Structure formats: structure tokens, C-alpha cells
């Protein structure tokens, strides 16, 4: 008899800007499950293993599974049942964003691809030079030296194109390297025209650590982002490991099973959003999206057919930047509480200074949830800049259909009611059509992105478990009918035998109360001037749904959602919507 191989036990460690998490994954009843997850404060400025260790000690208490030996070291591999783990995965977002310079050619080609790539990782772009700057090469060289990048990313030239287009930039970078003191020399990554690889190796390798990779833009229509993104991910981790005490030790324990949170988030969405053979880009096609609004950064990853991408942005605008005014205006507009503009400014400015603050009062929670809406709007806007396939009209609506939309991060998990989360998403993303909103309540999605690289079944099985909470299905009809007109009729048949009809009127927000977890059949009959996302105006269909914590939500408020100008009316509207969804 062949002895069956024992399933591996995984420990996941996530070192965030504010919190460190420890999560244990093991097989339960034949399937991988999250056995427990504990959070501790990240020991920023100290040894990072401090915060992680605190979370691990909590985890071993909570799960009755020993992780640490008496000396505090990780038990790996396991020594007996409920003692030790086989592998440790590490994701981190705690480090200062890495300084990166981008050098390329055409604005719409290599520069756009390079920018989209850098937007997907925790990097600060300190210099950007394309074809237009080539004529001012000496100035560019000086600017590059002054910018002190830690990484120089060189892109440009399609593979079948001329074999010398990047030569002037190779000259410029060579000179920049000569002028840069040894201690400040950046790493150079070349992901341009492959016919220039030998030339760049010959000329730059004697001066610097150089990586050459497949072309980021092998032809005008195709982006090949993953190899360069994967390398940059590792370089960022290496830079963080040098700067942050303790990260290197944790990295060694992971034996390569490590990533920045951003890259891991991107990876898991690429993985679970992988289209089946039948995927065609039609009005009904659906992609997958995940948004993480953590204390330090906002992450948005999406996959739609064969196209995917990620953006990572700082959680807060700077106090001195030009964005602050617009940010404060937006937040004030969307705060569902009677707070003055001044109070909003005070709270937000202190939160920017101290990102660890938690909303203590109901008003502060309302302000912070308005901030979450802003972060989603900004992340979507940035995403659409770098990914032309995303059909997003900033401030109006998101036209592509994504199902599910997975939410993570303190901004969501801090919400006291599921309805608050649902409303944040509807207002922040302004989606249309039909979707299911899922909450990653333990914030393990990035960890699953890393674990999936070793054991692909782990994310599949854990994603289907109770660790991910179904908040509900949303239906967002877009109608040409005026406010107050009936735009939709839904016949609801719940599995327990109950059934009822609901009429939906333009300008309203409705919640269909269906017990969480129950299956229901919805017969959706839109008016001839109403589009529900079934392929055009007036098209209806039967839809089978599993109800979530907020039941099924019908958002017929129109797109864009318009708020009254009068402050009292605006707050009354926002509160009324909260009331509808049980927020």
C-alpha cells in the first residue's frame, strides 16, 4: 500500500505598516483551511520579529498549535501533530517605498508600460525620461545623478524594431553610473529591445549590477510585465531587508517564499481570475477585482480576460501636496455625519500625521469611511491611466463587470456593520451591472498569493471557505428613465419556499432581505430603457444567488451618484442609504 504524502502545514506572516499578522493554514476534513489568524502591532523602528513573534504567540494560543520553541525560534519542520510548520510564507509592505528611475522611449509605448509596471509596486518614481528628453541628454544625466535612484528601469524598443534605439540611453546611464559615488550606485534593470542586451551587458556590466529581462513591450500590442515585475519585487525586498532590522531573518525562514504585499496581491488575482476557454470580451464578461485599503497603502488588482494589473498608492495624500484640497472636499462631501468642514480637516490632518489612529467616535468613523471612498476612486483612476482596457469614467462609473470584488484592509474590516462596507464599495467604485462583494476578513489574500506559488490548491480551497465572507450580491441597473420611475421588477424565490415581488424605482437604494447563505432565484425584468448588465437595455434574466450578510442590494441611484449640495440634505441622504443597508 502506498503511503499517502502528508499535507504541508503553512505559516503565513504579513508585516504591514501598522499591523503584523500570523496565519496558520492546515488541512481540515480534506481541504486546506485557515486555522487561525492573529494580529499584533508591527514593531516599526525595532526588530520586526518582535511584532511578528507577538502575533505568532497569539496564534499558537488561539489554535493550540505550537509554532515557537522555548527559545522563541520557529519550529520547522513539524516535530509532531500540532507542533511546528513545514513552510513559512512572508509578505511585507512595511518598508519605505524604493526610489526608482524610469528610462524609455515612446510616451504611449514603453513609457506607458514602464509606468504601469512601477505603479504596481511600492516604488517612488524619482525620475522619468522618454524620447522627448533624449535631446537634453546632459541635463538628464545630471538629473539622474541628483535623483539618487536605487533602481534604474530601462525599457524601450520593440523586439522586431531597430537595434540601436536605446543606445543613447545606455550612454546616458553609463555616464550617470560613472558620476555616482559607489555607495549610491543603483541596480540597473533592462527590459527593452532584446537585440540590445549584449550591448548593454558589454557596456554597463563592468560598472554596476545589471539584470536583463525579456522585453516589457515585445510588440506594440503586447505587454510582458510579469518577469520584470517579479524581479523588481525581489529587488525591493532585498533593499528593505538591508534597511529594516529583522526582515532579513524572517526572509531566510521563508526560504524564498516571500513577496511584497503588492506583488502577492497582483499574483493571486492573476491566478484566480484566469479566464476559462469560453472567455470573450462581451457586455456580460466578468473579471475579478480585489481592493485592499490598508493603513499604509491602497492596493487595487484586477484581471479581465487576459489582461490584468495592479496599482499601489500611499494611503494618504501628503499634507503639503496639491491633492490635499480636493481630498478634503471629497471627504467632507461623503461624510455621513453632521461634522463641520473644520472638524473633518482636523481629523484628517492628524490621521495623515499619525496613520495608526483609529476612529473612536461615530463621526470619525464616518469621516474615515469617506476617506476609503476617496482611496478607491483614486486607485481606480490611477489604474485606468495605466491600463486602457479598464473602462472607467473617473467620478462617473466603472463599466467593466467584476465578480467577485474582494475587499481587504483595515478600512473595511474596521467597519462595524456589513452595510457600511457595501455602501463604501458602491460609492467608491460606482460599479454597474451585477457583482458579488466578498470580504477578506482576516486579510490573508496576499499570503495566499505567495502560498499559491508553492501549493496552488491552498488559495483555491481557502478562498472557498468561510474565511472569506460573502457580503452580498449587488445589482446596479443603469436607466434612462427619470427619478421616481419604475425601472425594474424582481421576482424573488427563496429556497425556503418564500417568494415576493419587488419594484425598483430610479434614484433608490434597496436591500432584498434574504437570509445569509440562503439560495434565491431572482427573475429580473428591466424596463426597455434599463440595462442590468445582461447584454443591453431591456434584457432580463433569471439569476441564482447565494445571499450574503447584506442580502441582495439593488443600487438604482444612477451613475454617477449625485449628492445634494445642501449639507443637511446631503448628510440626510447618506444616512438614509446607510439605514437601508443596515449601516
Amino acid at each position, binding site marked *: 500500500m502506498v503511503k499517502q504524502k502528508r499535507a504541508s502545514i503553512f505559516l503565513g506572516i504579513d508585516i504591514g505598516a501598522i499591523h503584523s499578522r500570523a496565519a496558520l493554514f492546515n488541512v481540515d476534513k480534506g481541504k486546506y483551511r485557515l486555522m487561525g489568524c492573529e494580529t499584533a502591532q508591527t514593531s516599526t523602528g525595532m526588530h520586526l520579529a518582535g511584532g511578528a513573534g507577538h502575533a505568532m504567540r497569539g496564534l499558537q494560543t488561539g489554535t493550540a498549535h505550537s509554532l515557537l520553541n522555548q527559545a522563541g525560534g520557529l519550529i520547522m519542520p513539524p516535530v509532531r501533530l500540532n507542533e511546528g510548520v513545514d513552510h513559512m510564507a512572508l509578505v511585507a509592505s512595511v518598508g519605505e517605498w524604493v526610489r526608482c528611475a524610469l528610462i524609455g522611449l515612446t510616451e504611449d509605448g514603453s513609457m506607458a508600460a514602464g509606468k504601469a509596471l512601477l505603479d504596481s509596486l511600492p516604488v517612488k518614481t524619482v525620475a522619468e525620461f522618454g524620447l522627448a528628453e533624449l535631446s537634453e541628454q*546632459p541635463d538628464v544625466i545630471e538629473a539622474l545623478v541628483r535623483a539618487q535612484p536605487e533602481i534604474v528601469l530601462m525599457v524601450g524598443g520593440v523586439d522586431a524594431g531597430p537595434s540601436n534605439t536605446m*543606445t543613447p540611453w545606455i*550612454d546616458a546611464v553609463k555616464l550617470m553610473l560613472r558620476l555616482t559615488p559607489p555607495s549610491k550606485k543603483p541596480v540597473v534593470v533592462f527590459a527593452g529591445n532584446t537585440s540590445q542586451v549584449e550591448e548593454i551587458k558589454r557596456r554597463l556590466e563592468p560598472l554596476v549590477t545589471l539584470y536583463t529581462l525579456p522585453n516589457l513591450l515585445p510588440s506594440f500590442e503586447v505587454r510582458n510585465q510579469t518577469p520584470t515585475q517579479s524581479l523588481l519585487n525581489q529587488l525591493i525586498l532585498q533593499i528593505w531587508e538591508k534597511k529594516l532590522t529583522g526582515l532579513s531573518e524572517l526572509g531566510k525562514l521563508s526560504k524564498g517564499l516571500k513577496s511584497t504585499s503588492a506583488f502577492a496581491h497582483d499574483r493571486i488575482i492573476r491566478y484566480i481570475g484566469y479566464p476559462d476557454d469560453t472567455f470573450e470580451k462581451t457586455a456580460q464578461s466578468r473579471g475579478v477585482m480585489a481592493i485592499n485599503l490598508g493603513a499604509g497603502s491602497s492596493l487595487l488588482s484586477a484581471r479581465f480576460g487576459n489582461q490584468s494589473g495592479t496599482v499601489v498608492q500611499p494611503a494618504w495624500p501628503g499634507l503639503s501636496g496639491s491633492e490635499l484640497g480636493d481630498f478634503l472636499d471629497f471627504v467632507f462631501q461623503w461624510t455621513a455625519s453632521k461634522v463641520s468642514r*473644520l472638524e473633518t480637516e482636523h481629523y484628517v490632518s492628524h490621521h495623515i500625521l499619525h496613520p495608526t*489612529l483609529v476612529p473612536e467616535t*461615530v463621526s470619525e*468613523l464616518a469621516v474615515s469611511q469617506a476617506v476609503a471612498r476617496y482611496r478607491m476612486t483614486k486607485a481606480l483612476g490611477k489604474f485606468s491611466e495605466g491600463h486602457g482596457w479598464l473602462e472607467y469614467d473617473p467620478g462617473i462609473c466603472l463599466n467593466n463587470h467584476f465578480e467577485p470584488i474582494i475587499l481587504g484592509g483595515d478600512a473595511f474590516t474596521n467597519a*462595524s456593520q456589513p452595510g457600511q462596507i457595501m455602501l463604501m464599495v458602491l460609492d467608491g467604485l460606482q460599479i454597474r451591472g451585477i457583482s458579488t462583494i466578498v470580504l477578506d476578513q482576516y486579510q490573508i489574500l496576499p499570503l495566499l498569493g505567495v502560498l499559491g506559488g508553492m501549493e496552488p490548491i491552498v488559495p483555491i480551497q481557502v478562498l472557498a471557505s468561510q474565511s472569506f465572507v460573502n457580503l452580498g450580491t449587488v445589482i446596479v441597473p443603469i436607466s434612462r428613465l427619470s427619478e421616481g420611475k419604475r425601472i425594474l421588477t424582481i421576482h424573488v424565490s427563496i429556497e425556503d419556499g418564500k417568494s415576493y415581488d419587488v419594484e425598483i424605482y430610479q434614484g433608490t437604494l434597496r436591500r432584498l432581505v434574504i437570509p445569509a447563505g440562503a439560495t434565491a432565484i431572482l427573475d429580473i425584468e428591466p424596463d426597455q430603457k434599463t440595462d442590468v448588465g445582461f447584454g443591453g437595455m431591456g434584457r432580463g434574466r433569471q439569476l441564482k444567488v447565494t445571499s450574503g450578510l447584506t442580502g441582495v442590494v439593488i443600487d438604482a441611484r444612477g451613475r454617477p451618484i449625485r449628492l445634494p449640495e445642501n449639507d443637511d440634505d446631503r448628510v440626510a441622504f447618506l444616512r438614509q442609504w446607510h439605514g437601508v443597508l443596515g449601516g
Partner: protein
Amino acid sequence: MIVDVIHRLKFTKIQRTRELPFPGQVLIGEGKDVQPDDIIAEASTPSGLQTVDVARGLGVPVSEARQYLTRQPGESLDDGDIIAQHEGRISRLVRAPEKGKFLDFINGKAVIATGRSIVHLKAAMRGVVETVIPERGVTISVEGSLLQGVWGNGKSGEGKIKILDSRPEDPLFAQLAEEVEPDQVLAAGVCSEETTLMNLANSGASGLILSAMAPRLIPLAEGLPIPVILLQGFGDLQPDPETLSIFKSREGENTIVIAVHPDEIPGQKPEVIIPGGSGEIGEEMESREELSAGSRVLVFSGKNRGKTGEVSDVSEKQMTFESGITGFVADIRTDEYQMIQVPCQNLVIIKHSR
């Protein structure tokens, strides 16, 4: 729970390291006194780069141009120096366009740096050079009062400190500027009006130390040529009594205001240094510390925002706040003898001298 620490020490030893962004030359030795504006180190990089197309100038292929160089990379050049020459039926010359250094010869082109860009490192404080870090910078130390703030406008300056006579509970008013003498560093309460901030800045003052300021004044404060530092934060937060008493006890003395942006230098907060004074030197200064009973704290947010007091207990179990969020809380006896409960995450420790 580990929280940020703000130091408000009447007498302590302050050590600050000043480092160049890249290696250069340290201009001062150990044991020397420095003033805030003293340049203590400098580094330079070539600038004013010019490229001279030698191949084109000589009319030869790029691959052959190097052999006609009469000067080599690394050499210094004078204006008009011949850098390449091709003796043919018609002799051709290429000359240096300006005085400079021949940096490199790349693809038939000579790269010449016609200048140097120099980075100066200032002491930005008064004190004694304790350690020289070769090629990088120095550690300067001074004994005196240290008052750290939470926000700065990125500038620095010095002058004799004057406390503006405004009642703590009232915002500053513009007419106070009339009492100011040139080059004074002004310590005051809450500034909520543009006119007041402008009048104070235009009064000849060399720095502003405010308890708090309206957030909408940030762009204005950032544009001012003098340092502006906020000790408590934004809004209407009042200074705590100990901080006020330190200022009062040092009024009229020379004061240095280093109003760095909060994230400008990792770990460094905007701060006010008043050299001199006396007392027992306190313990080492940590920028983050475990919150515990006895910690003196400032409440940064929530319904008790701006209150100061002493922690009497830190909960071991998480509690639910009014917002519905759960977290650890601290029991605090405020300076007004109230007992309040505040989420630990919304506190900063204010460290005073013992």
C-alpha cells in the same frame, strides 16, 4: 502597545547626526563648536555636462574616432584646448567648448563637465562636534532644552525666544505682531487666521513655535521663509503646562528651530533646541516606547482630542469604542483631573524630564 514619543525635556544631552547624501569631505574636526549655519561637510558631483561630437567634427566613423583623441578622459581642459585631431589632406580639429573636465568618450562623443555641483551640509544646530564620520558627516551634541513637535514647514532658523502674551484658550490675533522685535523666535498658542500668520511672519521674527494651527494654513506656512513648528498638532490644541513652563523658564535665550517635515529625515521630528541651562541629564531618547501606567500622554484624536494627562492603566483586553471598532484602551487622569478612556493607538507619549 508601542506608541510614538515626543520629547519635551528641560535639560538633556541632544545628539544629532548630520550626514551628506553621498560621500564627500568633512570640513570640521572633533571638539569644534558649530553654529546652525556653519557648513560642516560638502560633496560635489560634476555638472554642466556637454557632449562634443568628435566623430562628426573630424568627419570619421564613430568606431574610429577614439584613435584621434589628443586628450584623454580624466584630464582637465581649458577653453579651446584641442581634444581631437585628424591629419589628412585637410587637417580637422575638435576643441573643448569650455573649461572643464573630460569625463568620458562614448560613441564618438566627448563628455565634458564644465562645472561641479556642490552639496553643502549645515550643522543646523549649535553644539560641539562629538564624532566625525569620515567622508559622510558628524555627530553634534549640545546640552539644553529639547522640545519636539509634530509638524514642521521644512525650514530652520534661530533667535531669542519670546512668548507671545495670548491667553491659551484664545486663538492668536494679528496685532500681537506689533510686540515683536527683529530676529525673535516667537512661541505662541493657536493660529487659525491667515492674516495672523502673515503678520507674525512679516514682523521680522526668525521662527514661529505654535501649539497648533488650522490645517488650511499649511500651504501658507510652507511658503514662509522662516521655520514654523507645531508642538501639538492641527486645530485648536493647547500647549501642555510643562511645555509652557519650559518656554517660560528659558524666555529670552537663544533658540534654534529645526522645523523638518515629519518624514524628511527618518526618525527625526521637528524640534526646538534651547542650548544651555542646567539639571540632571535624562535617559536615552527613544522615538517609540511601550505605553504603560505613568506615561504622560497627549490625546491625538477622538472626543478627548488635545487633552493631556497621565496613564493610570492600560487595558489587557480589547474594548469596543463608540465607533464600533475594538482595540486596547488606556485610562488617563487628565490635567483637569478627569478620568477618561482613550484608544491606545490615539495617544502619543510626551516625555518630560524627571
